[in-house]
């Protein structure tokens, strides 16, 4: 028995190509039934996400099964898939390695992201419910989930934020813990500050104040986010109420100065203030960071932390690959490695 994989991903195909082959959730059951009925395919799983569409199969006749997978892809899209681009095709250990890498986040757009694991679990559950999996793919996917768990717990591949939004949320949580009691002020209702505020909102911050030089814009954004619009001139008198300040005005000078924040922090020594300055030129006077309890991050420092997080993840890839390699060997042995694989070139696949 061999495991095969035919698919395309964000690395090999643009979104307009990927969407041609995507299998919506509602169509999964009939698609799996059709795939399972094709010659040579004993078991099948379809993984279809916004970044990848992959067809996995267990087969005793890999050549015939691969032809069936290609036929299935053609039927769905009306386009004949070409290999190696936009489609890739794997068989044997390359298929095993591919799925193990996918669930571990090594093939994701953002290395180490964990959403893909949930998506693959869902795809496998749908296939199992549709009765298109049996002993081989059951074992294969269960092993893949174990690999993902091990990679996540034994390496730093998922650690550290890798985007400005996630850096902001992580820093806020390292200052305040749970954000459910935090009050946020948005100073300057720009797109960047809105995105950052939304990231914090997703973690359940208690309230949001929005201030903008054009008050109507503040009102509109506050309504959108379920917050309160305040007059721009009112901001200075409201700093004592907030825990997080997101500033992104177009002012050519400092809007938030040490003179304004100093007295606020003196009156609340055990309540920190997290200032996120997304503006260029900067809105917050840099020396505010010297005030006890005030933590100031500008856009460069946030980007730098995100970049460091990405570097750490890249460095961890080798460590992850070592862990994965062990599992590939073990699974391959279980699958019956004694059975010879077809010589390279016998079927239209790449064994990368």
């Amino acid at each position, binding site marked *: 028995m061999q495991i095969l994989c035919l698919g395309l991903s964000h690395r090999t195909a643009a979104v307009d190509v990927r969407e041609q082959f995507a299998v919506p959730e509602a169509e999964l059951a009939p698609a799996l039934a059709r795939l399972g009925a094709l010659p040579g395919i004993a078991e099948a799983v379809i993984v279809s996400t916004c970044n990848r569409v992959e067809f996995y199969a267990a087969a005793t006749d890999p050549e015939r099964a691969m032809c069936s997978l290609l036929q299935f892809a053609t039927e769905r899209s009306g386009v004949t898939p070409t290999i190696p681009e936009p489609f890739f095709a794997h068989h044997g250990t390359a298929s095993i390695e591919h799925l193990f890498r996918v669930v571990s986040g090594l093939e994701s757009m953002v290395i180490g992201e964990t959403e893909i694991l949930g998506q693959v679990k869902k795809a496998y559950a749908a296939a199992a419910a549709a009765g298109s999996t049996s002993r081989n793919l059951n074992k294969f996917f269960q092993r893949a989930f174990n690999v993902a768990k091990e990679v996540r717990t034994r390496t730093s591949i998922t*650690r*550290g934020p890798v985007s400005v939004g996630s850096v902001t949320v992580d820093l806020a949580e*390292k*200052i305040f813990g749970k954000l459910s009691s935090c009050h946020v002020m948005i100073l300057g209702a720009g797109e960047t500050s809105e995105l950052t505020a939304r990231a914090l909102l997703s973690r359940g911050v208690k309230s949001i104040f929005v201030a903008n030089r054009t008050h109507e814009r503040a009102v509109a954004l506050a309504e959108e986010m379920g917050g309160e619009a305040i007059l721009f001139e009112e901001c200075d008198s409201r700093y004592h109420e907030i825990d997080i300040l997101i500033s992104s005005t177009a002012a050519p000078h400092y809007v938030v100065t040490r003179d304004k924040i100093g007295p606020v922090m003196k009156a609340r020594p*055990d309540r920190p203030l997290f200032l996120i300055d997304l503006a260029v030129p900067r809105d917050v006077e840099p020396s505010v*960071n010297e005030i006890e309890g005030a933590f100031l991050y500008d856009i460069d420092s946030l980007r730098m932390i995100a970049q*460091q997080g990405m570097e750490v993840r890249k460095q961890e890839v080798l460590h992850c690959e070592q862990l994965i390699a062990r599992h590939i060997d073990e699974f391959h042995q279980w699958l019956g490695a004694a059975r010879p694989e077809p010589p390279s070139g016998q079927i239209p696949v790449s064994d990368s």
Partner: protein
Amino acid sequence: MDRLPLILSTLCFLFGFAAMAASVKAGHFRPRRFNLAMMGAGFLLQTVFLGQRGKMIGHCPLTNLFEALIFLSWAITLFYLLIGPTYRISLLGMFTEPLVFLIQTVALLAPIDTPHPALFPPHSPWLEFHAAVSVVAYGAFALAGIAGIMYLAQEHQLKTRRLGTIFFQMPPITALATTNMRLLWAGFLLLTIGQAAAVAIRVRVGPGVMIWGGAMWFSYLLLLLARRLGPRRVAILSVLVFVLSIGALCIFNHFSKGEM
């Protein structure tokens, strides 16, 4: 031979710390069950040793500096096991293990295990209560000092924007500040109970002990009242006062020939 449980306990703390330090160095640190297991095993062995010692001398094992240090280590570990999981600050273990290892190693190697059979008069449970509760209070103060160090480390990383390997594994600074204050309060209440017991039973001590005891109680009272100075200063002071109190204890003990 009677020291065997203590030696094994010291090794448990060493192994726990070594495992955590290795994982930090490797860049993929997270508190593991192994560390908690080492802390638990170390605590059990400490308890066995103190139990055996108490049985042997017929008193609470606080008759000399050696026993006081072991009792202090036991109290620190006890507080860690009570507080760590409760406040989900298991990383305290990373700092607790080397501290306990250091205290026990010093106690084992230094020539301070001199017998003082007459220190506790027979049938003096209140005196033993005073001594035991006071040492347990210092266990809380030690852990408060550790929470203070963690607060300062985390605050430094946040201020300088240099986020090290363990930054994302550390508790939020507000949680560390709260833990620091709670441990200071717990220690202060225990110390007050211990001191009150001493006053109630009219313990006769030398002036050195009286000054040290009074000064420490007063220092911790001031520290609690100084909360308005902000968590950073409280963290610094909780470390300083603890180091000073232990340093003073050792100095007084040396010059008073075991009066403590």
